[in-house]
């Protein structure tokens, strides 16, 4: 079943007199268990794609389905609640709250959403991300890589069906980058999620089931792994 589906979606921005088509008409679908990479230079429309897929903005045309629900014309309040329930974001900029320590970052999610990971699953998650000893640390005490791993923990903690990651390995060394990809891969396949990674790090494509390339707003499938 397609967890995420975009049907004939495009995004047009008005810039003064001219119209800019940041995302050309695209159809896209991601199945449960798939890890998908989207690569492309900056300004190519990657972020636009990701924010439409994540329900952060509505497309100009076309429809977006998340877990079978049409979210295209929903109001922000409704979309926010779908983001909370269905989507885990790993953002390029650190998405941590500076005045909460790591365990409080996760606890905040308990305040706004039910059915998050239980204690045992959380422990496993922290173990595999190597952040178990950091639970009492504040974001300012963490290195870039540690922050990124905490951000991933945060995204996975709500047990979303879709994980959208914007350059998740940007501030990590190769070993850590591969570990993170392993993590995402594992979360995707074992729990039937779908993960979309936007990156220009071509080292990561080996982990992915599908690789799309986006240039000038045009999304194209360039590689499909045999395993799918």
């Amino acid at each position, binding site marked *: 079943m397609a967890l995420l589906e975009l049907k004939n979606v495009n995004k047009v*921005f008005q810039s003064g007199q001219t119209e800019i088509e940041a995302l050309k008409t695209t159809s896209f679908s991601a199945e449960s268990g798939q890890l998908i990479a989207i690569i492309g230079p900056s300004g190519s429309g990657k972020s636009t794609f990701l924010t439409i897929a994540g329900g952060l903005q509505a497309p100009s045309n076309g429809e977006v389905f998340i877990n079978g629900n049409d979210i295209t014309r929903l109001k922000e*309040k409704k979309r926010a609640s779908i983001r909370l329930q269905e*989507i885990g974001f790993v953002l390029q*900029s650190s998405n941590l709250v500076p*005045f909460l320590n790591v365990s409080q970052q996760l606890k905040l999610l308990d305040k706004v959403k039910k059915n998050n990971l239980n204690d045992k699953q959380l422990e496993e998650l922290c173990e595999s991300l190597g952040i178990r000893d950091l639970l009492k640390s504040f974001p300012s005490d963490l290195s870039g890589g540690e922050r990124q791993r905490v951000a991933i923990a945060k995204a996975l903690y709500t047990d979303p069906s879709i994980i959208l990651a914007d350059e998740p390995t940007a501030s990590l060394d190769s070993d850590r980058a591969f570990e993170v990809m392993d993590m995402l891969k594992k979360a995707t396949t074992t729990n039937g999620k779908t993960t979309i990674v936007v990156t220009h790090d071509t080292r990561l494509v080996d982990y992915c089931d599908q690789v799309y390339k986006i240039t000038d707003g045009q999304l194209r499938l360039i590689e499909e792994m045999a395993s799918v």
Partner: protein
Amino acid sequence: MFLAWNEIKNNKLRFLLIVGVLTLVSYLVFFLSGLANGLENLNKEAVIKWDADGIILTEESDLTLPQSSLKIEDYNGAGADEYAVLGQFYTIATAGDNKANISLFGIREDEFIMPKVTEGKVFKGSGEVIADDTLKNEGFEIGDELQLSATDETLTITGFTDNARFNAAPVLYGSLETLQKVRFGESTENMKDRINGFVIRTDNLEEVEVDDSFQVIATQDLIENMPGYSEQSMTLSFMIYFLFIISAVILAIFLYVLTIQKISIFGVMKAQGISSGYLAKSVIAQTFLLAVAGVIIGFIFTILTGAFLPAAVPVAFNYVDMLVYGAVLVLVSILGALFSIQTIVKIDPLKAIGANVWHC
């Protein structure tokens, strides 16, 4: 509350400053309310002490007791449950080195405005008076012979009573005869039925029947028309109301700046799907905590200051008033916070996460 409290815990200095400002504002509000209350007491104590509902004055007196002049036979008690005659005269009393502005009340011993003596004895004959006990604090004593300005008559203090100041002057209570002697000197005989008003107890002032040249007013109106009374209390009330506005604005500015600083954090949280409502509630909760802390500390400071003030400062704390003012301060602080709520609602999660997008 979770976000609100943890943010306060981790940014102690910042929030301590806000609490500090609120403490000072509430301190000032409480202190001014104490002062307003004290000044009011200074004016109205003696009137409150009557425990009466109204007073009959002449139409032309412009609602002031000293300017009203009637005769004892002008009123017979029609429509009132009880009434008492009252003559009044301002003068200056001197005993040795002690000098004080006083208000002399001429009353009948058997009527209800006769005060309870807290020390000493009641006045008996002409020339004897019961004095307000603030005079005792100024050095006057029982047995003191008081020289008066503008007359050769003297008065003797036979006892003291409490809470008896009229328009800021301590009251001396004496018989009507005493008053007339002080007031009219030699011509007492012709003027002995002259008084300033009739103090009335009744359930309904409307029912009190008087001639057209007289008017029946509520004791509250008498108080409010005392020279300077309204001006004083309005000035202080105005300052207090202004402080409410100031604290709302200060809080609004502080919280707005804090909110602006947190736009990207709020934006990220909103991107994750945390609702504006949750964030707004958190800011409100935070404001509530800060305001309550400020008000409580301000209250404690006020009480402490009050305990160390010299008696000459007319401060009297009315805890019901203070409770109301404290609650209003918390309320206006929250109103100030509402200003930031719209900013939170407007935060676009897209911008906050730094997505590379154009805006329509």
